[in-house]
Each structure stands twice: as C-alpha cells, then as structure tokens.
C-alpha cells in the first residue's frame, strides 16, 4: 500500500513531483501505515545523534555495498536488509540525509536498481528538517520484520559500467565533481594521502556541473526553471539523448541522476558508479586534463 503524494506547489513543475515530499507533508504523515522513513547519511553516526521519529537507518557503505566485491548487495541481501527494517515491497519509502540528500539520493538510486517502486526524497533533507524545529529523537525504532521478496537487481537501465561509458562516448556525459577534480589539479605533497585514482582529469567531452548546483541555499532542490537553465541550457543536454553522470565513486552523481530523471524528466540517464576511482586507474582509457571538455577521441 502506498501513501498519497505531496501536492506542494513547488513540486508541481518537476517532471515527477511524486518523488519529493516536504517537511510539512512528512510531519503530517509520520506513523501512517505503508510509509517508512529511512535516514541515509555520509556520516555513519549522525543517525545515532538524533533522527526523525520512527526512521530506520540504512548506510550506503555498510548496508548497501557488498562487503567483499566492489558492487552492491544482491537480491537476497537487499530482501534481508529491507525486511529487517520492516519495509515491504509496496511500502512508500521516504529517504532523507545529510549534505543536501547526497547519500540519500545514492540510497534511492540503489533502491531503484531493485525496482522498489515508490521511493521518494525529503526535500532539503536532514538539515532543513532540524532547522525547522521538527521532531528528532534518539530512540531506536524496533520495526516488525517484513517479508521482502528477493528481486534480482537490474543494472541495465540506470547503471553504467566502464565499457558502457566507452561505448557511450559521443553522447553527453556530466562530470559532477568539483572544478578542481575535473581539471585534474592536485595537491600532492609528502604525507598527504592521495585519493584512490592514479590519474587526474576527466572523461573526454564531459561537461562539468558540480552536483551541488542543483541545490538551493537551504538544501532543497532548485525550482525547475533554474535546473533547466543549468542542465538543458549550460550543459546542453537534449531530451531523448542518453546521458551518463559520474563523480568519484558514484555518490554525488546519484544526486544528479535524481535531478535529471525525476525532476527534469530525462528518460535515459545512467549513473557510472565506478566513476573516477575506476576510470582514473584504468589502463588505456582516454583522459582530458584542464578546464576544457576535450574532443571525443577516436576509438582505439
């Protein structure tokens, strides 16, 4: 059973307004049958310092990732995780988190790999909820375990592997990292541990649109007109064309994937979760340094 959508006027302009809820809506619907609230943060301890009453915690690193291989958990793992959190297949799940919902969007994207139908974000995330003085508790909920079916993950529609990106070259790519990461500047000095990539720069032809540009000051998503100006305008994305977004490990690009897919209505957007930590360490893939996008290279 799913729960009503939020009729807030702000969401009406988005392609899929049902993917967002406001603080007002969530506070009014807390505890309603069929609604589960999930907190997903960059900081693994933040939930313990206080969360929305009844919210369960799902951590991207420790829950959604396979502990051995660099991959997400499988259908059985996802079923066990969600069932244990008291989530049923037809529940409405509202995810929220720190940092403008950065990791919450990542969790939402992983839920989508498993085809969980009704999964939404709390606009503005954790910080806005707290800033508005809404209820927070440190009480840990004890959800009644639910039967969640084992559904095989479908990577084909919204996830891109490295080879998919190579085959995609010539179509739009969005690099959502900071300008410094995009251009390949680095501060390398003794005893300054490096991030896990051997080369710096970006995938040729990728446009640099740092993920945070989709968020307003208060952490909510910008209105559709502003998002349109950034992605269709500046970055030149055209409807109907396939798009791949990437960042360092696929976390920030999940946020952009959400914006492009659910707010702007692009229909063929994939997140390259291998992202720079894979591309920047791969042998014989093309890389461009500097602020220019660079040309699409000839196939080797």
């Amino acid at each position, binding site marked *: 059973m799913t729960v009503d959508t939020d009729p807030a006027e702000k969401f009406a302009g988005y392609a899929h307004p049902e993917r967002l809820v406001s603080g007002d809506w969530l506070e009014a619907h807390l505890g309603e049958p069929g609604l589960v609230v999930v907190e997903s943060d960059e*900081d693994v301890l933040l939930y313990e310092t206080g969360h929305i009453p009844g919210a369960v915690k799902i951590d991207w690193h420790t829950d959604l990732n396979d502990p051995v291989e660099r991959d997400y958990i499988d259908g059985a793992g996802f079923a066990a995780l969600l069932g244990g959190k008291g989530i049923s297949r037809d529940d409405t799940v509202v995810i929220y988190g720190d940092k403008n919902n950065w990791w919450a969007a990542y969790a939402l994207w992983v839920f989508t790999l498993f085809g969980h139908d009704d999964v939404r974000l709390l606009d503005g995330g954790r910080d806005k909820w707290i800033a508005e003085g809404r209820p927070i508790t440190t009480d840990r909920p004890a959800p009644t375990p639910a039967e969640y079916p084992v559904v095989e993950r479908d990577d084909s529609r919204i996830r891109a592997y490295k080879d998919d990106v190579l085959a995609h070259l010539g179509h739009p790519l969005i690099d959502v990292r900071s300008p410094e990461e995009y251009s390949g500047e680095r501060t390398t000095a003794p005893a300054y541990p490096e991030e896990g990539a051997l080369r710096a720069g970006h995938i040729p032809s990728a446009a640099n649109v740092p993920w945070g540009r989709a968020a307003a000051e208060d952490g909510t998503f910008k209105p559709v007109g502003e998002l349109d100006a950034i992605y269709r305008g500046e970055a030149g994305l055209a409807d109907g064309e396939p798009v791949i977004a990437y960042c360092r490990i696929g976390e920030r690009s999940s946020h952009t994937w959400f914006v492009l897919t659910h707010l702007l209505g692009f229909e063929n957007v994939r997140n390259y979760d291998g992202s720079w930590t894979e591309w920047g360490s791969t042998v014989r893939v093309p890389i461009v340094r500097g602020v220019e996008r660079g040309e699409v290279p000839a196939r080797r």
Partner: protein
Amino acid sequence: MTDTTLPASLASIRDDFLALEQRDRLEMLLEFSNELPALPERYAEHPDLFEQVVECQSPVFIFVEVTDGVVHLFATAPKEAPTTRGFASILVQGIDGLGVDEVLAIPDDFPNTIGLTEAVSPLRIRGMTAMLGRTKRQIRERLAA
C-alpha cells in the same frame, strides 16, 4: 624511525573497541565524538593556525604543538560530522601528552586495527589515517623549524 610501537593510551582505546560488538563500537565512537575537547582559548581565535584534513569529507582541522618534546594535538570538527569528530577525539585523547618519539612511532595503520573498519567502512577510516599522517608530518615540521 622504523620502530613502531603503540603507546599504552592508544592500545587501551583499541582494546576497548575490540571488546565490543559492532553496533556498540559505533556507540563508543559517538561517546568519543561527544568528548572531543574544546580548543583552549589561545587557539580558539586562531583558525589560521589549523590545517584542514582534506581527505575527510567533513571539515576537520588539526594543529600540533610541541613543547619540550611533548606533543599536544588540537582538533576541531563540526557536530554534524560525529564520525570525523570521533576519529579526531580518539587521536587527541590517545596522543596528547605523549613524547615526540612515541607519536612518530605510532603505526600508520593504527586506524585499521581498532575494529572500526566493518562498523564504519574502510573508505571512511581513511580520514582517520590521513589525520594521523598529517599529525606526524606537523611534528616533523615543528622539529625541523
């Protein structure tokens, strides 16, 4: 310099973590986080002295003071980043007051040995490794100055 031994203070923190179940380890990390000492007044007004640990995704800053061969470590991190605060607090509480040689002898992989890689994830632990690395580098700089 190749001799690495763990000071008793840090060994005891490690043993306390290892004695706990995974979930309780997070609780203890949260306690550390809440215990991160406030900056002494002489530094509170001098953010310029502090070095950002850019490997941490949250803004955390450290500053090392060496007085007569004794190390004092100061750190600051926002309340919204309790994990990073917890890492900083473990190092501050474990290192503050040790001798220079003792700190330089701390194994660089100490953060990986305290039983948090599973509860917190290896990727996040790297922030603590970076903090330790930068602490040692600052000590060497102070000694060279």
